[in-house]
């Protein structure tokens, strides 16, 4: 494959991705998206939150999950980093602790795909996490 050096070199990839998305949007009723927030402060980064965020970006689509992944600050659960807050449309947010890439895989397969609960949910007296 040709090396990608400039945005212009991305043109074909962009067109392929857009075609894939157009196809998907035709076959699906596009509802509200799942929100996934990865805590990206000092403790989280030290515990691997960057890798976890990459994992979600890389594996949601292939599992047919439509979500937006964003980063947020310290949720105050340093003992349980990496932490991830997931909000399904119309539901209360759930905070998952100690989310390694392996556990991120479980969350995708169980909670996101099948609505089964997985271990490691942090009971929150919920206060919003962007402080």
């Amino acid at each position, binding site marked *: 494959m040709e*090396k*990608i*050096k*400039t*945005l212009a*070199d*991305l043109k074909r*990839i*962009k067109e*392929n*991705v*857009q075609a894939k*998305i157009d196809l998907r949007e035709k076959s699906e009723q596009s509802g509200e998206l799942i929100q996934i927030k*990865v805590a*990206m*402060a*000092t*403790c989280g*980064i*030290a515990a691997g939150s*960057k890798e976890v*965020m*990459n994992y979600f*970006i*890389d594996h949601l*689509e*292939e599992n047919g999950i439509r979500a*937006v*992944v*964003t*980063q947020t*600050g*310290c*949720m*105050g659960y*340093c003992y349980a980093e990496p932490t991830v807050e997931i909000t399904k449309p119309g539901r209360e947010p759930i905070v998952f602790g100690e989310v390694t890439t392996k556990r991120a895989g479980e969350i995708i397969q169980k909670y996101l795909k099948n609505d089964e609960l997985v271990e490691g949910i942090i009971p929150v007296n919920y206060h919003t996490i*962007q*402080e």
Partner: protein
Amino acid sequence: MQNLSDHIMDIAQNAIRANATRVEIDVEESEARDALVLVIRDNGDGMDADTVQRVTDPFFTSRTTRKVGLGVPLLKQNAEATGGRLSIRSAPGKGTAVEATFSRSHLDRPPVGDIAGTIVLLAAANPGMEVRYRYVTDKGTYTFSSGETRTFLGDTPLDDPEIVAALREMIAENIKDIQV
């Protein structure tokens, strides 16, 4: 914090919390001057002089979620361990610039890490923010802009996994060209 890319993500998160809409990350590497300079600039809320004074103190944080703030002190410690230093320029409403200088060849200088991946992650995870990365060496300059990239992409989402992978490769290739 294992490497400079981790520090970049950490310091950038401070900017995001301070409501920045623009974060500029400059990495300047000079073999001739044996220096590696990291500057992270934002247009967020900024800090008053008293706060700037206290930021490098590990027992200072304005967060309410935890009693200590470690991000800036850790970067300072790592810079100083190589004979370098950390400085902060900031003013309320004017944004903040954090500058860390390292002796490039010093044994204790943390490796740069996956900077291409980190920049793309920052761009993908913060849709409303301009992320500008500039890499300057004795051999040249490379600039990446998330805003320019989004304009190019149009309706195609930047956070699509194939786009993320392609952008990571694009940035990494350009870094490789001018690395010293």
